[in-house]
């Protein structure tokens, strides 16, 4: 058992993750061809615009479900929203935010961009602390909007009235997942500007602009889009329920910042917060690169239902650093 544990702790998690991501990508993007269907309340950006995906993103359904008059929303039909949230949460519980780091196809795609940049040897970019703090809020705003807009479609707002049907699935319209992921099935139909109505036109222009920025941004900035992802904001609400946990033992931390260096999301707390035990922050995607980069014995741990499955060790750190090319 100890030997096995040692093996696991010495493992190069980045390589494991790379292959796992490819596996997950195939399931999520091509799952339909393999008659795999995981459902439609997945806490990950597995886009419903992909014709034959293996499962779909919860946000699309969420936006649909909130297209209800308020009186119905608080009546039995609201239950539909509730049950879908329950489905979402039950998926989420198992892997917690590791959905982002291991399964999300859009995240995987961004990681591939990072790999490409690394191969070319171009320096990555980082936000400054102050900018980062501001940008972090965007995802909460997006989450708020993607719930409010559908509600305003079904309920009239003073002076404006009901929003037109063109406002449907507002987040999907600007999500690069919609434009980019179907390309992997050879479907480029989402790359158009829709002149059908002004709203649609603005949305599609916005969507294409974001797609353009996504390609350039993801090249320079690791996980460029994830800072704005409302899914990660939504997940963060339920983070306490997750079985999978990232645990930090602050007494062992020397604040050396090695984990912060490794963190693609630039989460400062991982290095500087020595108070909290449960260190998952809203941007965290649970890739566990920080655990792999921690040189302090048992300082960072990955727990599943309270059982440690992966932890930082001196030996593991040393071996991983040595094995780097």
């Amino acid at each position, binding site marked *: 058992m100890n030997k096995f544990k040692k093996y696991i702790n010495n493992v190069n998690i980045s390589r494991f993750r790379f292959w796992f991501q490819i596996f997950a990508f195939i399931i999520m993007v091509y799952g339909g061809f393999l008659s795999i269907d995981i459902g439609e309340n997945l806490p990950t950006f597995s886009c419903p615009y992909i014709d034959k995906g293996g499962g779909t993103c919860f946000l699309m359904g969420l936006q649909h479900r909130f297209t209800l008059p308020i009186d119905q929303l608080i009546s039995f039909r609201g239950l539909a929203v509730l049950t879908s949230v329950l489905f979402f949460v039950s998926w989420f519980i198992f892997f917690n935010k590791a959905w982002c780091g291991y399964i999300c196809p859009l995240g995987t795609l961004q990681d591939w961009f990072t790999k490409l940049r*690394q191969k070319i*040897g171009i*320096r*990555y970019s980082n936000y*400054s*602390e102050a900018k980062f703090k501001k940008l972090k809020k965007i995802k909460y705003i997006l989450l708020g909007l993607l719930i409010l807009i559908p509600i305003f479609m079904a309920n009239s707002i003073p002076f404006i009235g009901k929003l037109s049907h063109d406002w449907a699935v507002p987040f999907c319209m600007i999500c690069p997942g919609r434009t980019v992921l179907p390309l992997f099935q050879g479907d480029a139909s989402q790359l158009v500007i829709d002149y059908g109505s002004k709203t649609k036109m603005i949305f599609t222009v916005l969507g294409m602009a974001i797609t353009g920025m996504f390609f350039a941004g993801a090249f320079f900035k690791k996980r460029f889009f994830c800072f704005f992802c409302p899914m990660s904001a939504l997940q963060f609400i339920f983070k306490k329920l997750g079985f999978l946990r990232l645990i930090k033992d*602050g*007494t*062992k*931390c*020397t*604040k*050396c*910042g*090695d*984990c912060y*260096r*490794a963190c693609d999301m630039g989460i*400062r707390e991982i*290095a*500087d917060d*020595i108070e909290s035990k449960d260190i998952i922050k809203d941007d965290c995607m649970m890739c566990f*690169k920080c655990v792999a*980069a921690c*040189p302090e014995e048992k300082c960072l741990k990955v727990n599943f239902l309270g059982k440690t499955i992966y932890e930082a060790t*001196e030996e593991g*750190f*040393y071996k991983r*650093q*040595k094995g*780097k*090319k």
Partner: protein
Amino acid sequence: MEKERFEKVRKHVRSEAALEAGDVLNKIKDNFPDNPEGMNYFYDLLSRQFSEGILPKNGKKVIGTMCVQVPDELILAVDAIPIRVCSGSFPYDNAGAEFMPAKTCSMIKAIMGLFSVENYQKKFDMLVIPTTCDQKKKTTEMLTDMGYETYSLSLPSRKDNDNSRHYWQNSVKEFAADLMKKTGKKITTSNIKKAIDLKNNARYEFRRFFNLRKKSPSVIYGKDAFLVANAYFVDEVESWTSALKNLNDELEKRVNKNFSIVNQKTPRFLFTGSPPIFPNMKIPLLVEEAGGLIAVDEVCSSSRLLYDMPAYDEGALYDMIPAIADCYLKPCTCPCFVPNEERKDKLANLIDLFNIDGVIYQSFSGCQLYEMEQKLIGNFLMEKGIPMLYIESDYSKEDTGQLSTRIEAFIESIKIKKKSDLKGKRATK
């Protein structure tokens, strides 16, 4: 005429320093039983350092460093030899005292003494001095004035924000650029990777050593631990690493055999504050001769020296050099940083890990940073209920009698406390 006098002084100081070093080494070797075989390498190395001089003779460029914050990896990457020139020698301290202000810390005086007495201008290609404390800063200028090639490595005073982190990273980048210019060799991904690996090997062994010291009752004295780290100042990394590996293997055997050099009752101390640098082993020796054991230390000449490892994410210069920079800044607990809460956390952690009974805080008189931080650390430890002995001292031996009284009284008080704790434990059982 002047030259002749100078030569005379040099000879005199050198022989005095060698005498002092020999004396201390003998004390270290002979006053204690059961020195590990593996320590002989380090004993020999340090005695050679003082009888034959500190410089290697293999034609490589030599770069002198002061303070732990100098990133050795860069120096190793350009195929030069880093040598830490911080000195603990009283004769050199005396020599420096001739022209340094009276209230300067002994280490600075000794460094200045060393460089003024010895004609090292041609032997060191560069002296790298981080702007840690005010005295080191001015040392840089004084050394330049003496004709040395110096490099002032600009260190921020804060390390808790990103600005200072980037400032330091830039500082290190500039240093790397300067180093390349100076040596005419390029830092490439492959040679810096090699340098990092080289130093990481040393760090790995050092950590192993560190962990072996956790065993209670201990398998090795603190004075030996200090020597091991001190040897790193002047030794080449590979040979040092393999010597330490031998020592570690030996200590591991001791642990497995349940062999220990002291007994369960021996009070275990944490040594912190100004760095004891061989041959200034006054306080550690006094403590261990009086029946205490320095189980672990938190000083820049020992545990802090090789503890922290850099982690780079992408194997390219744009990531590796900042990673190296970070590893020298962020975990550093030098009192030159504000705020320095990390030092308290570190001490608390060490106290837990090493089963510490008391803390010995040394500060060189004149080292204001350590002198002042003493109060903060003292208060922190008092809250934790760990007794601390604060000793203000320098390289001279004149206060040995008084110090030994204080240290013995401290050890006695801890022994009494330990005894009553044991009694209490027995009573509850």
